[in-house]
C-alpha cells in the first residue's frame, strides 16, 4: 500500500508532467540509449558469432568472453571511463555495448553450432553457396537461440542504462539518483517502477518477436 501511495505522489507531481524532466521525455531518452547500444552491440557481435558458429571455431574464445562479460562490473567501467575520458554520451555507451555483446555472441554461436548437421549437408548437396546456407538454413534454424541472446542483451542494457544517470546523463535512472540526493523517496520509487516495467516490456517484445519470426516447424519439437 505504501508503495502505491509513493507512486501516486510521483505521478501527480507536476514537475514530471512536462518539460525535460517529464516522464515521457525520460522514457524516450532511456529507450534511445538502450536502442543505440543494442544496435551497436548487435552489429558487432552477431556477424562475428554467425561466422564463428558457421566455421565451428572459437568455442573456447566465445565461452571465455561470456565469463568475462558476467564478471565485469559495468558501474565501475562506466565511472572509470567518465573520469578518464571527457564526459560524453559516447563514453556512456561503451559499457552498455560491452555489456550487450557477450550474450549475443554466446547464444548465437551456440545456436548456429546446434543446427542439425544433416540440414546443413542437405543444403550443401542442393548446391547452396556458404552464404545461402547461412542465410536460408542455419540462421532461421538458430533463430530461437539468437533471439534469446538478443533478449538477454536487451534486458541487461535497459536495466543498466539506468546507471547513465550516475555519470550524469538522462534516462529513467535520473529519477532514482535525483530522488536519492533530494531525499524524495516518491521520485526514487517512480523511477524504479518505471525502469522495471520497461524491462518487462522488453521481455514481452522479444517473446512476441519469437512468436512472429520463428518458423512454426521449430516450435513443434
Amino acid at each position: 500500500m505504501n508503495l502505491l501511495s509513493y507512486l501516486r505522489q510521483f505521478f501527480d507531481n507536476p514537475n514530471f508532467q512536462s518539460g525535460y524532466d517529464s516522464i515521457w521525455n525520460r522514457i524516450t531518452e532511456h529507450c534511445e540509449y538502450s536502442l543505440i547500444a543494442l544496435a551497436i552491440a548487435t552489429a558487432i557481435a552477431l556477424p562475428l558469432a554467425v561466422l564463428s558458429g558457421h566455421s565451428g571455431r572459437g568455442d573456447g574464445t566465445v565461452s571465455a568472453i561470456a565469463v568475462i562479460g558476467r564478471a565485469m562490473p559495468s558501474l565501475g567501467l562506466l565511472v572509470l571511463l567518465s573520469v578518464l575520458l571527457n564526459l560524453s554520451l559516447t563514453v556512456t555507451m561503451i559499457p552498455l555495448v560491452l555489456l550487450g555483446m557477450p550474450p549475443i555472441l554466446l547464444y548465437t554461436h551456440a545456436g548456429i553450432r546446434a543446427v542439425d548437421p544433416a540440414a546443413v549437408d542437405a543444403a550443401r548437396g542442393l548446391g547452396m553457396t556458404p552464404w545461402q546456407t547461412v542465410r536460408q538454413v542455419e540462421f532461421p534454424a538458430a533463430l530461437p537461440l539468437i533471439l534469446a541472446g538478443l533478449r538477454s542483451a536487451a534486458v541487461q542494457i535497459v536495466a543498466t542504462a539506468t546507471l547513465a544517470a550516475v555519470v550524469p546523463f538522462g534516462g529513467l535512472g535520473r529519477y532514482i539518483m535525483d530522488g536519492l540526493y533530494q531525499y524524495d523517496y516518491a521520485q526514487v520509487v517512480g523511477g524504479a517502477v518505471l525502469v522495471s516495467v520497461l524491462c518487462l516490456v522488453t521481455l514481452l517484445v522479444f517473446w512476441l518477436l519469437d512468436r512472429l519470426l520463428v518458423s512454426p516447424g521449430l516450435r513443434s519439437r
Partner: protein
Amino acid sequence: MSSLFDMPSYVQSSYLGLVSVQLEVSLGATLTGLVLALPIGQLCSRLPRFYPPVLGLVTLLYSIPSLALFVLLIDVFGESETTVFVPLALYSLAILVPGVVDGIRSVPREVVDAADGMGYGRARRYLTVELPIALPTLMAAVRVAAVSSLSLMSIGGAIGNYGGFGDLFLLGLHFFNDRLIWVGLVSLLVLSILCDLVLRGVQRLLTPWARSLRSVG
C-alpha cells in the same frame, strides 16, 4: 605498496573491510540462493509441470534492474546490508534453479533404479547418489552465480555504503579520484577469479571419482 591500499578518509572502511563485506554479502547471498534453489529444483524435476512457470518467475525477477530493486527495498529494510543481500539472493535463483534441475536431470535413470534396487531410502538416495552425480552441473551454476553476485553487488554503492568495492566507484567519481576506481575494479576482478578458482577446487574435492576417471581414461 601500502599507499595503494590506503583508503582516503571519505571511504568509511579499510581495504580489508571492503574485501570482507564484499565476500560476506555476495557469497552469503549465493549460498542463501543455493539453499532455496535445491528444494525448488528438486520439486521442479519431480513435477515437471511446475518447471516452466517457476523458470518464468525467476527470469522475470532477474530482469528487474538491480538498482531499482535495491532502492525499492530501502522502504522495507532501510539502508542496510539486507537491502543488497535480498536482491542478490533472488537474482542467483535465476541461475541456480536451472542449474539444479539440469543437474538432477543429468542423473541416469538406471543409476536411480540401481539405488532403489539396493534398498536406498529417498533421503539416502538423494544425498549419496543423485546429488553427487548432479554436482558438476550444479557447481558450474554456483560459480556463475557467485561471480555475477560479486559484480552486481557493486551497484549497491549507489544507495549508500553497501556496495563493497562498488563504494569506491561512486566515491571515486564524486572526488574525482581515478585511483580508487582502478583499485575497486581490479580488486573486484581478482576476487571474482579467486572465487571461481576456489569453487573449482571445492568441486574437485567433492568429486574425487571424476579425477581418478580422468587419470585412468
